[in-house]
């Protein structure tokens, strides 16, 4: 029983980070209807940024979030303005091909610049844990959970209470109507991409103390983010939040009860099942 609780707990903690990545992806989809296949590479970007900030400037990864977010926000916004904006009206298949290309460019540039050596970011607390009622809680995971919770809370406040947040939601719901209401939808697309990218990179920074860092690390995150978003419903931030936790827990339990090598397969099979039987996801409205 305690094994179950243990793996459930670490799954939920990890799931929060998945949720963060998924929220970024779903915001991008919500506003532009584009499926960003380079999303995992943005996580990778955050990881490397945190790594270099730590090794070169001694900045703790959790603090580095304050630098990583704005930096990658700008990168995402730039990407949207220069490249992604051009394919807003193209066939969805072509949009996805373009983002696949961008992902390849990002991961392979990283390989060129940083080599494919695995890098490890070890902080003083990287392997600490404490006990709480029979289960062991990993300190870095708990830390990332707490930061994720805080970031998510700020995001919800932003989307619900601020003008710009509401404008983004309006654009996501009905682009034409939003435009008629005077919202600058092109700018909304830029902002949304910035936010999505920034959130992904923050997740990367939070994972940096516990993950091997290498150029190809992004790819499984991209696929998992899609599972999260499809499960939660494309475009639903609430859905991505719930979906992330569910996928994190599923993966963790699968690693224990099926096999660690096959845990990814379990997630992908779940993905196919969702696409087949409940493509709109838990909270989604769009037709598949």
């Amino acid at each position, binding site marked *: 029983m305690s094994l179950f609780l243990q793996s459930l707990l670490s799954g939920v903690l990890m799931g929060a980070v998945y949720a963060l990545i998924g929220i970024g992806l779903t915001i991008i989809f919500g506003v532009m209807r584009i*499926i960003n296949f380079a999303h995992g590479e943005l996580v990778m970007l955050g990881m490397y940024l945190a790594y270099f900030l730590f090794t070169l400037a001694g900045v703790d990864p959790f603090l580095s979030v304050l630098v990583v977010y704005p930096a990658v926000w700008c990168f995402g916004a730039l990407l949207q303005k220069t*490249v992604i904006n*051009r*394919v807003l009206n*193209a*066939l*969805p*298949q*072509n*949009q*996805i*091909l*373009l983002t*696949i*290309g*961008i*992902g*390849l*460019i990002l*991961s*392979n*540039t990283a*390989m*060129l610049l940083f080599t494919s050596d695995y890098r490890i970011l070890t902080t003083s607390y990287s392997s600490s844990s404490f006990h709480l009622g029979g289960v062991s809680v990993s300190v870095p995971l708990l830390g990332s959970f707490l930061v994720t919770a805080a970031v998510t809370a700020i995001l919800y406040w932003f989307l619900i209470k601020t003008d710009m947040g509401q404008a983004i939601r309006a654009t996501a719901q009905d682009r034409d109507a939003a435009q008629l209401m005077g919202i600058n939808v092109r700018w909304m697309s830029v902002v949304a991409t910035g936010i999505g990218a920034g959130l992904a990179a923050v997740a990367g920074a939070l994972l940096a103390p516990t993950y091997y860092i290498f150029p190809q690390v992004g*790819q499984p995150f991209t*696929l998992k983010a*899609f599972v999260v978003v*499809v499960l939660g419903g494309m475009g639903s931030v609430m859905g991505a939040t719930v979906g992330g936790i569910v996928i994190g827990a599923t993966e963790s339990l699968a690693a224990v009860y099926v*096999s660690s*090598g*096959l845990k*990814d*397969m379990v997630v*992908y*099979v779940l*993905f*196919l099942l969702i*696409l*087949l039987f409940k*493509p709109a996801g838990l909270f989604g409205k769009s037709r*598949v």
Partner: protein
Amino acid sequence: MTTPPPSSSRRRSPLAPVAAVLAAGAALGLVPAFVSSPYALHLMVLFFLSVIMGSAWNLIGGYGGQYSVGHAAYFGVGAYTVVVLLQFRQVAPWWGLVPALALAMALALVIGSITFRLRGPYFVLASIAVAEIVRLAALNWKDLTNGAEGILVSDIPPLVVGGKVITNFVSKVPFYYSGLALALAVVLVTVWVERSKLGYYLQAIREDQDAANSLGIPLTRYKNVALVLSASFTAWAGALYALYVGFIDPATGIGLDISVQIVLTAIIGGIGTVGGPVVGAAVLVALSEALRANLVTDLLVKGGLVRETSKVGLFLRENLAHAHMLIYGLLVALVILFMPEGVVGALGAFARRRRQRLAREAP
């Protein structure tokens, strides 16, 4: 967006294209008699493999509009079936090919029936997920596939027909002819499909699925036919590749990189055309080799853009050779942004505009 050229520019009778393909085939067939450089033959084998894979994808992706980015699954199934049967059961590859193709076709039917009800980007995602599942299965089923270690191909048995030894598979020539034959086959099949009921129906599905459905076209059935056809050629290419290179493992046999390369071959040349994947294959193989042989760096140095001994020069010389996938990523992005009809499509559009301009200027 990647788009095929309008069908008004396509000729009706298959005679001209078939004759052209056969003539090209005959000419290529004579090449090994005059060219013995293993390097040249090697490039041609790579070229043929690329043509096969790109054209196979083109059937379901270019004509059918179903962008599978998971074709590596069929490639891998073909490669692994033949290699496993050869190495572990001593089954000669030409017999091993039969179950390999059967498995690939069965897999295609299953995948198609499950995923073809999904539209656009969801289909793309599902195709990627399926290929990953296949790759993970190969990675984890160590008893069957040796897992991440892969399988080395040692000693393909000699091909004996009527008591005479045709080849020992030591030189590249038998692979050259196998590749050529299969490439000719898939191109001719494309020519045939383009003019057949299957081709018309696939293109209708690509243009407007609901309209096609309302015109009496059973969607999943025709998509499945195209996918099964596509999968079998892809699997055949996988088998040929594994035997030629002498090694297969999940990363090189079933990775996402392969799926992306396949799609890239088709879209660079121009999807939905017979010649597109051929042109794409030529471009990609030439580019890969130019990269590997450091020709690109040499060009930059000769052109005076980069000093050979500068930091940039040394960096490029050391790293550009391995920058395959980076260049592919750039190519995908550039093609989609600026040349969505591919090379063949762009040439066709240029020719059409010229014709229209000349027609307007005529008295």
